């Protein structure tokens, strides 16, 4: 095995692949060859580093130098200056990693400093397609420990004491779930992994699968041992091709090395894994719908009880956990329940991965201890709101969650606090919104999503969400009334209590939370027919500010419908509202910023 003096890690996650990392890898190979460094420097394609905003990302160890937004033409300099001559190319480094001429390594960059990586510990460090590298970072040691030193009950006991709760949304204690399944009667049991990450704007599960797929294989085998199952299924979105292929490689390699299959570690424990692809249905993230889909049926939820712990896949006892939940488990086994439960808050232990997005400087994936304040995530790790705009709300929990306003930024993040604010942890999407986002429009956006994704099985969800969407559309188009707001609220509460599955029960959350914190925006839409954020097109008006107008007439020449009147050099221009199509072309064209929207 060759020993290299330097490792160049190139992020190969979906974000960086989209921004062209494959060209970087190719170019690096050429440059290393040119400088005859192939034997000294190793190039590794890893999983996501988390800071997708700065992609493509290249990190050079042992210095830990953090290059961001690398272009193929930059590679030559990195190779010649840094890899050959050992001089870090300062101007290509991530902006936050250079401070007063001192170069910080990746661990010291603010974005990473406040994070604590458990589920993501290997992401961006190992080559996800190499089982050897996973093993070198203590991979499969937890499985070995469990199989040779622990009884199944002991494994469950560790999990229970660790306080780990499901990371897929609901937050059910994982140890209890395993215990129920272990105790359930059945000749055959199954382990399943929910990798059908469907929340718009959430991609933590994908990153774990792309960056550290063996962790999931190992954890599922541990689950199999604990509950007495010899077969597992990973249900993964077909929209994640990179994740699917890396997981398949991991499964194949594990089989080749006897870490899946018969008599693992010489014990009588057998375990096998299969991948099942989803086909683009959000509701399949709901556990019973997912089970139906694995069985080859329409992905519609089943009534619970019976819970999957008793009647899951093919009516056999099944333990079903989310990707991130599994990713925590090998670490808990190795480091112990006490270690894990020492992190986090009273009732939410450990860390949580969030996909930070929207109007925020450092878009990306962050893993923070439970109990971190929303403010720290948004302003310190996330680097605040771009362009000096004002923060308006942060949306957590995707279409099942809600919008949290600025007043609650000092809330410590945990399951219970988020629920009491009318939102939820969900799978971990965290979308930041600024003053330009209309909260009514955001609620409409999420309802549009749920209407699309409602499976149609139960009436409250199928009909109710559709009616809610219609009301929201009326309001954003300026045709809403005050009664509509009341109707909306009543409908929301009914859907919440009467729906069959989690999708319907949480679908009204975006509406209820915005009604609670931003009712004035709804009222502005229906009473004054105005959208305070200037986002709802139908309610917009473009107006020429007479004092500033220099009568140049540029706006009139740009207007595609010719609705702007005036006389060049003599008369202030005027926009005819009845003909205006609100395209905003005039506002963009005015050199004097004399046109405003409102």
């Amino acid at each position: 095995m060759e020993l290299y003096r330097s490792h160049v890690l190139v992020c190969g996650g979906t974000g960086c692949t989209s921004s062209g990392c494959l060209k970087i890898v190719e170019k690096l190979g050429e440059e290393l060859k040119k400088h005859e460094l192939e034997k000294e420097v190793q190039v590794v394609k890893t999983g996501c580093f988390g800071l997708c905003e700065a992609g493509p990302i290249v990190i050079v160890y042992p210095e830990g130098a953090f290059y961001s937004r690398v272009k193929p033409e930059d590679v030559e300099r990195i190779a010649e200056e840094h890899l050959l001559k050992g001089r870090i190319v300062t101007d290509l480094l991530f902006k936050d990693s250079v401070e007063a001429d001192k170069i910080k390594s990746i661990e010291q960059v603010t974005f990473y400093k406040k994070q604590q990586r458990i589920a993501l510990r290997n992401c961006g460090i190992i080559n996800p397609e190499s089982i050897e590298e996973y093993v070198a970072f203590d991979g499969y040691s937890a499985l070995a420990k469990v199989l040779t030193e622990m009884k199944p009950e002991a494994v469950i006991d560790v999990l229970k004491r660790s306080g780990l709760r499901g990371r897929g949304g609901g937050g059910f204690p994982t140890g209890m779930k395993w215990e129920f399944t272990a105790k359930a009667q059945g000749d055959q049991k199954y382990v399943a992994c929910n990798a059908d990450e469907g929340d718009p704007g959430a991609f933590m599960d994908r990153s774990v699968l792309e960056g550290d797929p063996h962790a999931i294989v190992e954890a599922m085998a541990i689950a199999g041992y604990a509950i007495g199952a010899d077969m597992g299924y990973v249900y993964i979105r077909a929209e994640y091709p990179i994740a699917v292929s890396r997981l398949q490689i991991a499964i194949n390699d594990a089989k080749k090395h006897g870490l899946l299959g018969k008599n693992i570690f010489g014990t009588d424990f057998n375990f096998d894994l299969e991948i099942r692809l989803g086909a683009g249905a959000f509701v399949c993230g709901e556990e019973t719908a997912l089970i139906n889909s694995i069985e080859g049926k329409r992905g519609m939820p089943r009534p619970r009880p019976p819970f999957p712990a008793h009647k899951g896949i093919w009516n056999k006892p099944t333990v079903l956990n989310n990707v991130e939940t599994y990713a925590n488990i090998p670490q808990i086994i190795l480091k112990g329940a006490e270690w894990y439960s020492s992190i986090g808050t009273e009732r939410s232990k450990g860390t949580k991965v969030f996909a930070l997005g929207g109007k925020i400087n450092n878009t990306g994936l962050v893993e923070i201890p439970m109990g971190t304040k929303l403010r720290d995530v948004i302003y310190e790790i996330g680097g605040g709101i771009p362009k000096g705009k004002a923060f308006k709300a942060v949306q957590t929990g995707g279409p099942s969650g809600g919008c949290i306003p600025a007043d609650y930024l000092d809330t410590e993040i945990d399951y219970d606090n988020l629920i009491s604010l009318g939102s939820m942890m969900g799978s971990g999407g965290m979308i930041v919104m600024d003053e330009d986002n209309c909260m009514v429009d955001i609620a409409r956006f999420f309802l549009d999503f749920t209407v699309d994704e409602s499976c149609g099985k139960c009436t409250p969800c199928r009909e109710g969400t559709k009616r809610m969407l219609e009301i929201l559309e009326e309001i954003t188009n300026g045709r809403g009334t005050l009664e509509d707001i009341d109707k909306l609220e009543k409908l929301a509460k009914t859907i919440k209590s009467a729906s069959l599955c989690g999708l319907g029960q949480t679908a009204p959350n975006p509406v209820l939370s915005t009604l609670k914190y931003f009712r004035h925006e709804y009222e502005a839409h229906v009473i004054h027919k105005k959208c305070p954020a200037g986002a709802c097109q139908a309610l917009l008006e473009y107006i020429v500010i007479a004092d500033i107008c220099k009568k140049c007439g540029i706006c009139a020449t740009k207007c595609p419908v010719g609705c702007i009147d005036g006389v060049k050099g003599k008369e202030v221009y005027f926009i005819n509202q009845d003909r205006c199509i609100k395209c905003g072309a005039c506002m963009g064209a005015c050199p004097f910023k004399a046109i405003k929207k409102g």
Partner: protein
Amino acid sequence: MKSIQELEKMRQETLEKVNLRRDRKGTRIVVGMATCGISAGARPVLMALLEEVKKRGLEDVTVTQTGCIGVCRLEPMIEVYKEGEEKTTYVEVTAEKVKKILLDHIVNGKVVYEYTIGAYEK
């Protein structure tokens, strides 16, 4: 995988390879590899270091390169950063000297004074 020993073997074998990316503790040996260093023969020194480290199985030692250390006439130079110890700079290093430095200083903790920049200046 039929036994934990097999797993441990695989872990050990690969660990050397990926060690660079773990938490940087232990000893760091830096070789000056600017144009001056390379022309004075820094590359064989670097290779010798890598080989010796591997041969002795020194897990917590990383070998890396840097630019010009500044005293070009004394190249090739290497700097040793050991935990809890001042930086030691060795000058006019050769592949032969590397062996002694590694054995005396890195393994046994005794600085090889006659090779250091301090000895040279006197």
